[in-house]
Structures are given as C-alpha cells and as structure tokens.
C-alpha cells in the first residue's frame, strides 16, 4: 500500500507532539474492569492526577466508569478527540486505528503489546497500523509502551496502577525504551525533584528518540533531557538533532543493546576493531551528548542540571569530615577533568582563624567539629569556603550524626545559602541513621540542592556539569 502522505508533508508534522502531551480530550480504549491494569486504571490515574482535559472511556460493555459516561465506540463520542490510548488485543488494533482515523484523531498511544517485539504476525500488524496512521496523518507512540506523562497538566495515563497521584512538576524530561521509567515503576511521588515529561516510546514504530529530542528541544518546561536507548533508528538524524539540542539543553543518554553489526565496521584488513558501541560513543562525543553508564544515573544525574547553576570552570572545592573521602573524591574528579581548587590565600587565612590547619586544599572539618560546638562553626566554615572565587563547584559531604537537631541545623544553613552563591553544589550525606540520612536528603532537594546516593555519583554530577558547560563555552 502506497502512503498518500509525502515524506515532506510527514516531516512537517514531525516535531509537533503537543496533541500527545497537551491534549484537551483523551479517549481510553480498553478494558474497564476494575483491576491493576488497563483502561480502568488509566481513567483512575487521570482522575486522581486531576487531568484538566476531558476523558472519554470507550468500551461496548459498559455504560459508566468512575462516574464518567462510557462510549460504545470512538465514533459515538460527540466531541473532538486529541489523544487516544489503545490497550486491546493486538488483532483488534488496526480496526480501532481506522476508527481513530475516521474520527480525525492525530495522536495515538498504542499500549497494547505483541507486535514487532513478539513474532511475525505482530510485525505485520505493526506495519498495518503504521500504514493506516501515515495515510491519516496520525502519529503513534508505541506499540508496547507504558505511555507518557506530562506533570504540568496531570496527564498521567498510566495503564498500571502507580499507587500515588501526582508527579511533581519540574524540569527533567525522561524518555526510555522501557516502562521502567513510568510512574508505576518509579517513585515519582516521593521524588524531591520534579519531572516535566516522561515518554516510553516502546517499539518506536513511529515516534522515536529523535522526535522526542526535537519536541523537548522547544518544550519550555524541560531544562534537561535524559534517555535510555536500546537502539537508534536513524544514526545520522540522531547526530544532527542531538547536536542541535545539546547546544540548548543537556542531553544524557544510557544505551544498551550493543550489536554485532558494528564489528563489520572496522577495516577488514586490521581485524574487527570496532564495535557499534564505539560508534555510538563517537556520535555522542560529536553531538555533545553525555553518556551514562548505569540505569540509576538516568534518574540521579539530571538533578545537577535541573537544580544547580552550571559551573564556570573546573575548580572543585571539597568539604569533608574525613581525609579519606577527600582523597577518593580527588581521584574520581580527575576522570572528568575537574581539578582540586587551591584556596585563595585570604580564604585559607580566614579558615585557619576558625580552626588551625583548616585552610587546606581539602577542607577537612572533622577535627574542628570534634573539639568545637559542632554546628556553631559549620556555617562559618562553609560560607567562607563558598566565598572563594578560586572555586567553581563544591562537593559537600555531610555527616548527619545520630541526632535530629543536626538535621535541622544543616537545613537552616542550606536555607541561608539558597540563591546566594553562583557555585554548583553537589552533596553526599552519610551517617549512622538511614531515616535521618533520607530525611535530610529529601528536604535538601526540596530546597533545590541535589543530594547523590554516593560519593562517585556526586563527583560525576559535577564532572558532567563542568564538561557540558565547557563545551558550551567552546561553541559560544
């Protein structure tokens, strides 16, 4: 079947995904039986999240669900529909797609699975729905997806029960080729930094990582983009678009799925030199994309961009309770081109006046803390360090102590710091009490100071922030 939409027309529609993320009306096509998965859950999560648009459940066997009128089919819905979610048996999807086309729907999320990822029949069905969609100028996310989120308008059409109602609005966009990033799998309800958009693009039969990058490029709510990829649909396009996007906002990518095809890349004469992963790495370097290595980093590292200013240089200050941590931090920092800040003479002098020997490269506050009234001088020390213009970013290590009053003191101090220093601060918290560590971490992030799960993660956050900032400077 020849598509009637020319490639040129089609590409014009490419980057506008607003029907997906800002729909005025959503049709939910699927089972409405009360349970843990399906249309019922979608309607429920949308209602719980306070979705601002209209919700039209579609199912021939129901009249009403959760107080909403149910329509027997899409064509019975009297009003215009911006977005349809389809979660029905795969063999019924083409027909429903045709109904969506007739209704003039422009955005469809095919949650249903069993397509190209399963078998030949699934692959054929997938081609069929793509054909229908292309002809009708429908854009598709999926199939085989847990869908999308827009935190700003309560669009959380999760087909699985997340167990919480809201995703805190913020500036991090998270995209992946897995439902592991969707609300049912990740505690967005308990996160202390906010998310702008979430997208699981599933099988990427239409909308892929490049479309999302283009959309997020001009999404004012998004300040940083983080992605998990198993494949790249079009390498050249990826390079071109990501290069453009990274000039505006940081793009962080975790990629798996190293293929054997890449081995062919190398010149046969000298043996198999290349694996495709090296090529992807090369593309990331050329595009200014920050490559992640661990799944956890997808959620942790964007915080530094989301919550903190970019460092102006690579000079790293370290404040720690033990010398050992300082040394480990220095080792780690070198990987990213960070170098330990040499305190300016006047700052060193001031620190030495607070406590003899304090004004060193690594500010080890363990000794003075042991002999002084702990918190009384903490604030003085940190403020002094932050005043040093020989430093661009700070790794601050906090020991919570077993006592709650310390937590309150730290919070008071961080509260005073807010907005007063143009330095990038990454914090790592440890101590003998998990509840206190967790409490302080959460509350510091609520104040806008990212806390990282370990020392290496905190340094990496500062490292990639420096590298991004440095590259941007080079291009300006």
């Amino acid at each position, binding site marked *: 079947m020849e598509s009637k939409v020319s490639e040129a027309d089609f590409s014009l529609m490419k980057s506008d995904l607003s029907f997906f993320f800002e729909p005025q009306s959503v049709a939910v096509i699927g089972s409405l039986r009360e349970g843990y998965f399906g249309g019922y859950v979608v309607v429920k999560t949308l209602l719980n999240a306070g979705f601002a648009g209209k919700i039209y459940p579609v199912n021939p066997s129901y009249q009403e669900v959760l107080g909403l009128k149910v329509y027997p089919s899409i064509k019975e819905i009297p009003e215009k529909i911006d977005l349809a979610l389809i979660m029905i048996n795969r063999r019924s999807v083409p027909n429903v797609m045709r109904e969506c086309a007739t209704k003039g729907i422009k955005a469809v999320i095919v949650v249903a699975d069993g397509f190209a990822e399963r078998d030949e029949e699934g692959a054929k069905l997938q081609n069929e729905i793509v054909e229908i969609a292309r002809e009708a100028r429908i854009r598709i996310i999926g199939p085989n997806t847990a869908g999308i989120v827009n935190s700003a308008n309560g669009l959380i059409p999760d087909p699985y029960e997340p167990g919480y109602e809201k995703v805190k609005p913020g500036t991090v966009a998270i995209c992946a080729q897995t439902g592991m990033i969707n609300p049912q799998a990740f505690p967005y309800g308990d996160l202390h930094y906010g998310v702008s958009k979430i997208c699981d693009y599933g099988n990427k039969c239409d909308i892929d990582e490049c479309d999302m990058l283009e959309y997020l490029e001009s999404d004012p709510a998004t300040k940083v983009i983080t992605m998990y990829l198993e494949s790249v649909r079009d390498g050249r396009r990826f390079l071109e678009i990501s290069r453009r996007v990274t000039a505006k906002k940081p793009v962080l990518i975790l990629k798996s799925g190293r293929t054997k095809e890449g081995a062919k890349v190398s010149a046969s004469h000298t043996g198999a*030199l290349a694996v*495709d992963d090296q090529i992807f790495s*090369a593309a990331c370097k050329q595009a200014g994309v920050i490559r992640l290595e661990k799944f956890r980093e997808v959620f942790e590292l964007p915080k530094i961009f989301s919550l903190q200013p970019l460092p102006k240089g690579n000079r790293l200050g370290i404040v720690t309770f033990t010398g050992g941590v300082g040394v480990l931090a220095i080792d780690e920092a070198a990987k990213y081109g960070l170098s330990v800040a040499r305190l300016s003479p006047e700052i060193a002098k001031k620190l030495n006046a607070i406590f003899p020997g304090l004004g060193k490269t690594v500010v080890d506050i363990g000794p003075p803390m042991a002999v002084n009234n702990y918190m009384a001088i903490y604030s003085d020390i940190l403020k002094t360090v932050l005043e040093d213009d020989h430093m661009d970013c700070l790794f601050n290590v906090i020991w919570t102590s077993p006592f709650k009053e310390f937590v309150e003191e730290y919070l008071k101090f961080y509260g005073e710091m807010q907005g007063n220093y143009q330095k990038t601060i990454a914090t790592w918290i440890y101590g003998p009490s998990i509840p206190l560590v967790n409490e302080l971490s959460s509350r510091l992030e609520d104040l806008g100071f990212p806390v990282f799960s370990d020392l290496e993660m905190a340094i990496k956050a500062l490292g990639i922030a420096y590298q991004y900032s440095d590259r941007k400077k080079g291009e300006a």
Partner: protein
Amino acid sequence: MMGKFSIFDQIKKEGRSILTEFESKKLLKQVGIPVVKTRLARTKKEAVLQSQRIGFPVVLKIVSPYVIHKSDPGGVKLNLNNVTEVKTAYSEMIKTISQQYPDAVIHGVSVQKMIRPGTEVIVGTSKDPQFGPVIMFGLGGIFVEVLKDVSFRIVPVSQRDAQEMIEEIKGYPLLQGVRGKESSDIPALVEMILKISNFVEEYPQIKELELNPIFAYRDGAVAVDARIILE
C-alpha cells in the same frame, strides 16, 4: 575531478571493488594526502628505471587486484640498494606470485622510495549500518591489532573532532614523544584525518579506506601503504 571518477568507473568496469595500492595512492595523492612516492613498473626494465628516478634505497611491491595481503606471499621487497638488487627482487617476486596465484592478473610492481621509519599510525574509514561513514584513528602495529587502541568519529569530522580523536587514544603520549623518541606532527595528522573525512563524504561509493601505516615525523606525515574498497 574527472580523473577520480574515471578510476572508480574503470574499477567497476573490470568487475572489481578493490583498488590496488597503486590506484589507491594515486587517488589519495589527488585529494592532497601525502603518500610515499610510488611509480608503477610493468617490466623489469621499467622497475630499474623507476628505481633510478626515485633514488635508492627503494621498495618493490606487487600490484595485483588479486593479491591483497602483499606481505604473505613475498609480494614486498624492502630496502633495495642498487640496480642488481632491484632486478633480482623483481624476478623473484613475479615468480613467487605467479606460482602462488596462477590466476592472478599482475599489473606489475610498484616502486617506492624506502623512507625513514616514523611513528606508525593508521587512519581508516568504513560504513556503519546506522551512522554511515565513520573514520578511525590509531597507532599502527600491535597498538591497533592487539590493544585496539583506536578512536572513532562519524564523518564528516570537524577540526576539533580530529584533534580529539588523536588525543583520545591511550598511546597519545607516544605521539607527543617519550623516552627520546621523536614527537609527531599532530597538526599534519589532523589535516590528514580532515582530508580523508572530506574525501569519503564526497564519494559515497567508497566502502572502506585504510592508510596503514602512515609514518608520522616531527615535521609532516606520509602514508606508506593504502587501500580503498568500493561498494
């Protein structure tokens, strides 16, 4: 420009996809890549004449589309210092190759200047199924074969990409000159990478290209061996 196309057309007409070293170098020279001075000799007499023109010592290499791994079957004779040595080498080479590859079409031998060894580096290109032409840089010999100490970029590369490719390999300090070893002309290597990148970008019919080795010196760099494979 027409010259380059005519080589490509001719190769295609002959039903082959691999350019001989001689053809590859000729093409590379045309796009401004420094290659070691190389002449084609179809007879022993020509080999002697070309050796005298180029100046001793010289290297003889077999020129045949069928002999790819020249070093295997006696297809390379190094360090020939006079006419007698060239004559002997020529006869031996033709004899060995004809015995080992009875069906091989032999264009002749290439006579090359035996140049002073430099730091061996390699530049290659190939095609990735998703990213298209990619370019590789590495130190030659065991560094590339055993240690896989290479860097990649997607074509076309910028000056900065080329610079980063060189700095990225683990053996970079060797290019900067260590333990009394001569340092290498990094800007010359950068330029070579850029020229190769532009070349393969302009000619998508090139499937693979390899300059191996390139001798890098304190002042300049020159490709000693080269090969190009077409789609």
